[in-house]
Structure formats: structure tokens, C-alpha cells
């Protein structure tokens, strides 16, 4: 900055009394000696005075806003603003509900596989819940798969479960199982004792199918579904001894199945079974082996469920978690629809 500009700035600030005390004293000392600087100051003062004295200009008209235009627009804007906000919140809530519901449904399905085991485990703190669930599931799960097909066939309730079975095989039976199985609680134990092979197989997936199957193929399958129910009820009451028995029985079943040497295709077979007619279901032995195989081979399938829903919490039985899951899914869908409507309304309003 040139000295001249600095002087101009000092003089300008001096006029407005905006100089620091030292600067002010220094400038006044210079002004006392320097006539040219004084002339500059006077000229600047006159300039500022001219501007100050400019007559104020009145508004040539009123600038009030037309309530017909801006009042309505403002309200519309508010409405739009709120609907956009609400739609955003609804979308967020819907996505959470959908994900939660999906997870719950999934975990519910997986737990249904292990339902008999999980329930007791939860009931009895003595056993490490996770391991118990996994083991039992492994045992129990295999049998379920073979039974699954009938379930799908039986009724509409089974159909969703059949879909889920693609993931875990198990679920189809679960929800229905609890509902239907409970009454048969007594039968469960019966099966178990003899149960080496057949019991485990029937227990799981069969639940939904049971109703239909019990009539068709009473042989080995009828009891298994009952077992799960019985286990849940009975075990919680009786305690560890029961579990031990169950485990042993299950293990024996698995080993027996292994002996039969099921091929890797077993798992693949299982799912088709679920979808297909009950043709495969009648033959208990292959089915059982398949199930056993699955249980033994893919503990991973069993694992996720405990992971998703902490082992202790699953106490509310497999079906219990699926119900809120479905409710959440439904709520999520409703919220999505509402959000969509709000978006559309806001968009049209905006237009």
C-alpha cells in the first residue's frame, strides 16, 4: 500500500474517530505541521458531509407482499416442507423396519431348525446356550429337511416357509411347528427314546407338514414333530437330563446317518424335496441321512442364527421371532407407501 493510500485511510478513520489512540496522536502531530495533509482532511470531511446530507429517498411505492400470493405460498411451502421431512423420516424408519423384519424372519427361520434345542438351552442356564443350540440343531435339523416337503404341500402357511427353506431349509417347519406341535408335547419323549434314527428326522421341518403328513405317512414322521414341542415343554421342566438324552440320541442318529454315506448332493436334494411333492418324504432313511449330513456338514448354517439373535434371547421360541419380523416387514411396507404418497404430494405442491 502506498503511503498516500495509508494517509487516506488514516484520515478517513480519523473523521470517524476510529483511530487507535497512538495513531490518532501521531496523525494529529503531522496535521499540525503539514498543511497539505490538513487540506486533504478538509476535502475528505466535505465529501463525507455531502454524502451524509444526501436527502433520503422515499420508497416510490409500498413493497408489502400480497397475502393472496405469498400467504398461500408460504403455507403451501410449510406443508411441502413438512411433508418432505415426514417422508424422509418415514423412509428411514421403513428401511430400518424392513431390515429388522427381514433379519428377524431369517433368524426365526434358522432358529426353527434348532427350535427344540434352542428352547431347552435357553430354559436351562446350566448349558452354554450357543453351543447347545448349535449341537442340537445339528442333530435335529437333518430330519427336518426331509419332512419339509410335505409341509409346503399342506397349506398356504407352509409356502412362505418353503421359500425360507432355501436359506436354512428349516424354517418352513418352525413357525407352524410351535403352533401345532405344542398340543402333542407328550408324544415327544416317546419318540426320543426309540428315536435314534427316525426321531430326529421328523422333528424339525415336519411341523407344518405334520398335520397333513400324520394322516398320510404316520410311520416314523408323526412323532418327530411332536418331539420338538415336547422337548421344549418337557425340557424346560425336567432339566439337564433330558437334554443329555436328546443330545445322545441326536448324535447317534447323526452317526448312523453318516454311516449310510450320503453324498454331497444331499443338501441339494433336500431343497428340491421341500418344493417337490412328498415323494421323497416317505423314505425316512435317506431323508434322515441327508438331514444328518446337513447338520454335520454345515454347522455354519446353524451358526448364523445364534449369531444374529444372541443365544440367550432366542428363548421366545422360533415362531415368536418370526411373528414380529413379519409385523415389522408389514409396517415397513406401509411406511414406505406413506412416504411415497407424501413425496408425490410434496412434489405436486412444489410444482
Amino acid at each position, binding site marked *: 500500500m502506498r503511503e*498516500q*493510500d495509508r494517509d*487516506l*485511510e488514516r*484520515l*478517513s*478513520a480519523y473523521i*470517524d474517530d*476510529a483511530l487507535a489512540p497512538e495513531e490518532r496522536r501521531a496523525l494529529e502531530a503531522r496535521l499540525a505541521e503539514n*498543511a*497539505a*495533509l490538513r*487540506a*486533504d482532511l*478538509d*476535502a*475528505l470531511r*466535505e*465529501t*463525507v*458531509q*455531502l*454524502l*451524509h446530507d*444526501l*436527502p*433520503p*429517498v*422515499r*420508497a*416510490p*411505492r*409500498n*413493497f*408489502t*407482499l400480497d*397475502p393472496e400470493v*405469498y*400467504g398461500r405460498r*408460504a*403455507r403451501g*411451502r*410449510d406443508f411441502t416442507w413438512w411433508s418432505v421431512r415426514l417422508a424422509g423420516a418415514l423412509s428411514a424408519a421403513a428401511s430400518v423396519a424392513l431390515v429388522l423384519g427381514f433379519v428377524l424372519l431369517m433368524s426365526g427361520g434358522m432358529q426353527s431348525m434348532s427350535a427344540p434345542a434352542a428352547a431347552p438351552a435357553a430354559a436351562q442356564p446350566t448349558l452354554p446356550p450357543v453351543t447347545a443350540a448349535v449341537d442340537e440343531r445339528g442333530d435335529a435339523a437333518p430330519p427336518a429337511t426331509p419332512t419339509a416337503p410335505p409341509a409346503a404341500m399342506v397349506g398356504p402357511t407352509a409356502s412362505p416357509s418353503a421359500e425360507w427353506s432355501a436359506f436354512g431349509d428349516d424354517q418352513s417347519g418352525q413357525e407352524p411347528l410351535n403352533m401345532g406341535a405344542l398340543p402333542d408335547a407328550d408324544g415327544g419323549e416317546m419318540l426320543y427314546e426309540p428315536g435314534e434314527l427316525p426321531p430326529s428326522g421328523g422333528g424339525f421341518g415336519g411341523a407344518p407338514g405334520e398335520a397333513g403328513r400324520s394322516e398320510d405317512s404316520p410311520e416314523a414322521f408323526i412323532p418327530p414333530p411332536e418331539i420338538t414341542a415336547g422337548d421344549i415343554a418337557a425340557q424346560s421342566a425336567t432339566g439337564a437330563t433330558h437334554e443329555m438324552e436328546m443330545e445322545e440320541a441326536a448324535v447317534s442318529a447323526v452317526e448312523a446317518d453318516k454311516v449310510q454315506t450320503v453324498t454331497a448332493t444331499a443338501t441339494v436334494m433336500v431343497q428340491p424335496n421341500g418344493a417337490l411333492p412328498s415323494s421323497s418324504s416317505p423314505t425316512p432313511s435317506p431323508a434322515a441321512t441327508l438331514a444328518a449330513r446337513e447338520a454335520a456338514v454345515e454347522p455354519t448354517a446353524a451358526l448364523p442364527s445364534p449369531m444374529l439373535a444372541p443365544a440367550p434371547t432366542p428363548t421366545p421360541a422360533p415362531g415368536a421371532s418370526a411373528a414380529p419380523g413379519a409385523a415389522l416387514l408389514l409396517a415397513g411396507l406401509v411406511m414406505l407407501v406413506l412416504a411415497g404418497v407424501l413425496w408425490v404430494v410434496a412434489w405436486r405442491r412444489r410444482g
Partner: protein
Amino acid sequence: MDEAGLIEDAQRGDINAFNTLVLHYQDAVYNMAYRVMGEHHAASDAVQEAFISAYRGIERFRGGSFKSWLMRIVTNACYDELRRRKRRPTADIDVLDYTEPAPLVSRPENPEAHAEHAALSDAIQGCINALPDDQRMIAVLCDVQGCSYQEAADIAGVSLGTVKSRLSRARGRLRVCLGAVRELLPRRYRLDSESSEESTR
């Protein structure tokens, strides 16, 4: 006027309350816009836009000086209008040719004195118009509107130092410009050209 109450009502969407505020401040806001824009059509456009913006954004007003808040909005509206006119200068040729007499506040004076004042005002406004936009804003805020440095800094969104330097440069330019039209100035305002020439040597 219960300004705080009117502002609250306006924030709740009461446009009548807002219009009361408009009527109260429109002269000050228009004066600012006119001095910055230099002519009435542009000033009217800027003021109208400013009040619309103010109404739409009044929920964001969080206390302080409502007048300063309005001045900031009209300052921005003036910048927008200036930019718009620079992009399309030909669109306003008619407006520029049309020299509408400024609706000055009436003063009890004879016609001759009135004409002199009008000529003086035009001369000063012409010099203000010749300033760069940034300097013009600050000069109008401080020397026409009477804002303090701090108020001007808040309204223009710049630092105190920037206000000081812009203001001094604007005043320096105005001094030179007004010296060139000094014959129009009343005797008491007549700038001493000789002394200023000496000072520049």
C-alpha cells in the same frame, strides 16, 4: 411498534405482521437500494426481491437488529441485481435513458434551491455510481445510511479492516469525482481544488 412481536408473528407465517414491518422499513431499505443501484427501476426490483427473501427466510432470523438483517438481505439483492444487469446490459437501455426524478423528501425551500439540491444530488449519485461495487456498498452503508464500521462489516459480511480500507478508497474517489463537478456544489461544499492538488503532488 412492537417489532419483536411482529417478527414472531411473521415467523409463524402471519404475512400481515410482516407487511407492517415492511411498511416501517421500506424507506430505509429503498434508500439503501437506490443509492447502491443508482436508479429506481433496479432499486425497486432489488427491494421487492429483498422483502420476498426476507419473508421466506424470516424463520432464520435469530434476534439482533432486524434493520441490519434487512440491510444485509437488500445488499445481497443489490449484488444479484447488479450481476444480472452486467450479464444483460442491453436489456435496460430504456431504463438507463429514463431519468426519473428521485422522490426526495420534501423540504421547505424555494424552487431555485430545490433545483440546486436536485442537481447536487444527481451529481453525488453519479459519483457514487462510478465507484466499484464493493466500495459503493460500504460508502452507502457508512456515509449515507450512517452505519458504524461494525454494522457495515456485519451487513456486508467482511472484516472491520476491509470496511476501513474500502471506505477510505471510496471517499478518496468521491472527493476527486465531486471536485470535478464542484461548480454544481453550494459554496459551503465547494472543495478546495488547489489545496487538494497540492496534496497530491
